[in-house]
């Protein structure tokens, strides 16, 4: 039983009283639930709540560092309030920060739109389909909880109105701020996001500072619909990681926030998985030089290993082929929070007594139970301490978008594919998390589909559990041609791994790759030679024959001599 099951008719507006009531109610319901259903399967949780505990105790409990800012926002008369909504706060912010709005309206966190400079593909959350919940487009009511703006209810959002920028989601530091769906879901989902204390707008407005890991983490650690579901290397563990999970972000390590590496100016910051820097040739640059990349090299240089040992020198020459992450993030989903590796939509829609439910049969390292089945989403497989997949990567991602035709008979469809090769000096061997999903597609047109997941109507999947209706509505809503026939297709997506850098003593041993069944053996294909993989079968055979042949020869010769000597003595 979790707080998410608490029934609350609407988002709670009256703060203090409501909180007391909720606490009392929850105590009542929790005890009632335990008393009335003593034999209930503890792994089954009724309801389809998607309330993720993405807050924020971390932000509330951790002692704050002394602010280096020259302005204490809590003393500003402009921020005394009263405020009753986010846009009111934003207006006040933009009175002083009068270029911030224009800056931020170019940012992906606002536009959800990205034109790839190399492939020309039109990307961004507003159009892409992934192999988790699939599409944000048409489901903005739900998905826009992670849009850095207010009131995005559908794809007709006004991207030119700077008053709808959500400054607080990135800058508030109380840990009490949150966002809720901007539109109503199906009645079956009506309990999904209830039970949160009302936002004290003045308090959060006065708390603004540079973004902390709490600001970034409450969306990015929960991508794909839950803790670490999507990335594998971005989980709630990073709110306060032990040193062995993340040497940079741990308090025993460097205590970095996200923006220590993801540096930015003018509300545009480094780091993108659409167009990545995998070979930072500038490295540390000259002293005082501005840095515009979130690469390892930008702090550590491209030759970071001490050159007083053979090993150090050898490791430095690896950097022209192997990304830092490959050796220094030996496993992902460390620290007790699992990542999803397989999502099977085919089992979606099973109900118990007409009600959606969750089956929590996976217990992860930190003791929490994770849903292996959700009525609204299907079945999940999890992994922890997972070895990544490795491939040549030049930083450029290609996406299977809504208008990409594919051949479903040719095996799993790559949601995103990437270029890179051993012969390209700009490519590096890079670690990826691979996500495998079985999801619906347009059988007639051989394309992916937009599904209508969220909505208070009879087509939204979440509440109606009907793929056919959901796809038809999702495609129609967005003006995409739909054949009317759908089926399931297997898909794969690849997520570059950059976070959860281990302390150097935990970096991968040489023999992880330099071995017969090493991690990179599949890349030793003639274009790359990796010592220790024994790929040349011919040489192995010749070597064995030569050495054992010689041994047999001399032993035979020696034996003959002994026999001959004995015969002579007789």
């Amino acid at each position, binding site marked *: 039983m979790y707080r998410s099951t608490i029934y609350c008719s609407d988002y709670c507006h009256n703060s203090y009283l409501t909180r007391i009531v909720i606490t009392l109610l929850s105590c009542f319901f929790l005890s009632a639930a335990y008393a009335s259903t003593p034999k209930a399967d503890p792994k089954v949780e009724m309801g389809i709540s998607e309330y993720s505990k993405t807050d924020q105790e971390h932000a509330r409990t951790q002692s704050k560092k002394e602010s280096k800012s020259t302005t204490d926002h809590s003393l500003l008369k402009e921020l005394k309030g009263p405020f009753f909504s986010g846009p009111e706060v934003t207006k006040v912010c933009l009175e002083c920060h009068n270029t911030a709005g224009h800056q931020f309206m170019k940012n992906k966190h606002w536009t959800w739109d990205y034109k790839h400079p190399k492939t020309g593909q039109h990307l961004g959350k507003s159009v892409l389909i992934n192999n988790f919940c699939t599409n944000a487009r048409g489901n903005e009511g739900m998905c826009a909880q992670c849009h850095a703006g207010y009131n995005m209810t559908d794809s007709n959002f006004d991207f030119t109105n700077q008053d709808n920028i959500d400054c607080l989601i990135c800058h508030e530091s109380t840990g009490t701020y949150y966002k809720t769906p901007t539109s109503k879901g199906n009645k079956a989902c009506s309990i999904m996001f209830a039970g949160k204390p009302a936002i004290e707008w003045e308090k959060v407005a006065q708390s603004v500072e540079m973004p902390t890991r709490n600001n970034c983490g409450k969306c990015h650690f929960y991508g794909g619909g839950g803790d670490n579901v999507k990335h594998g290397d971005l989980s709630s563990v990073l709110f306060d990681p032990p040193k062995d999970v993340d040497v940079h972000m741990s308090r025993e390590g460097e205590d970095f926030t996200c923006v220590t590496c993801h540096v930015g100016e003018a509300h545009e910051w480094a780091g993108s998985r659409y167009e990545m820097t995998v070979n930072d040739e500038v490295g540390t640059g000259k002293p005082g030089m501005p840095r515009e990349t979130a690469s390892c090299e930008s702090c550590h240089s491209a030759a970071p290993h001490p050159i007083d*040992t*053979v*090993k150090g*020198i*050898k490791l*430095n*020459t690896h950097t*022209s082929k192997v990304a830092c992450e490959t050796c220094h993030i030996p496993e992902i989903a460390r620290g007790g929070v699992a990542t999803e590796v397989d999502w099977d939509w085919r089992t979606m829609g099973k109900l118990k007594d007409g009600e959606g439910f969750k089956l929590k049969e996976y217990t992860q390292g930190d003791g929490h139970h994770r849903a292996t089945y959700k009525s609204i989403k299907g079945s999940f497989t999890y992994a922890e301490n997972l070895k990544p997949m490795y491939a040549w990567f030049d930083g450029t991602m290609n996406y299977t978008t809504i208008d990409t035709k594919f051949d479903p008979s040719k095996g799993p469809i790559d949601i995103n594919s990437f270029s890179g090769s051993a012969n390209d000096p700009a490519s590096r061997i890079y670690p990826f998390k691979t996500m495998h999903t079985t999801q619906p597609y347009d059988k007639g047109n051989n394309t992916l589909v937009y599904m209508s997941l969220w909505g208070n109507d009879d087509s939204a999947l979440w509440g109606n559990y009907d793929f056919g209706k959901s796809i038809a509505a999702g495609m129609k809503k967005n003006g995409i041609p739909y054949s009317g026939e759908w089926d399931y297709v297997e898909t794969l997506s690849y997520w570059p791994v950059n976070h959860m850098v281990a302390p150097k003593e935990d970096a991968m*041993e*040489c*023999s992880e790759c*330099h*071995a*017969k069944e090493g991690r990179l053996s599949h890349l030793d294909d*003639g274009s790359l*030679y990796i*010592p*220790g*993989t*024994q790929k*040349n079968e011919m*040489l192995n055979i*010749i*070597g064995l024959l*030569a*050495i054992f042949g*010689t*041994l047999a*020869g*001399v032993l035979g*010769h*020696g034996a*003959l*001599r002994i026999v*001959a*000597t004995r015969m*002579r003595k007789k």
Partner: protein
Amino acid sequence: MSMKMIKLMVFKRFERVWHWSQMALIFTLLFSGAAIYGVNPLISFADAVTLHTWAAIILIALWLFATFWLFTTGQWRHYLPTTKNFVQVARFYAYGIFKGEHHPYRKTYRRKHNPLQAVTYLLVKTVIFPAIWLSGIPYLLISFGIGGFLNDFGLANIALVHTAAAIAITVFVIAHVYLLTTGHSFIDHVKPMITGYDDVELTDEELAYIKADEPDLLKDS
């Protein structure tokens, strides 16, 4: 012409130091090289690379000295191939040795190796060892990031030559050690490379020359 068997210094101090340090280095290189190739689990890959690199660098230095020594002392002549006694020695290993015959070859002042030995060592010095260095040095340069100009050969090809040469060296070492057992005794063969002295057939003229000009070469001078 009368011949005398004399205990004579045939392996000078440098030659002995060279031989035994080369032996130690080659064993080290075979041991660590096997680990790098992936067939020796007794040492980690990282340690094997370190050991292999240092042993190779020391052996390169040793060889520079040895090559200089061979040419300046004229000792290189011992390795010139010859047909004299070749057939007898070959026949001995293939047949006579089983009959209890004595080794037909006697060391002479100008020839401290038997003809089979000489041609083997010559092959080792002119084919196998150059193959190891012509592949090993580029391998070292490439893996140390200063061999860009060699990339056209391909590390895989370079490694192939290197491994093949290493296999040939292993074969040589096996045969070499085995042949030490073929004389009077194993010790008899090893001892000259330790003390430097061996029985050498000398002509009266050679003996007279040595007594007059290089008396230090004689054990009982």
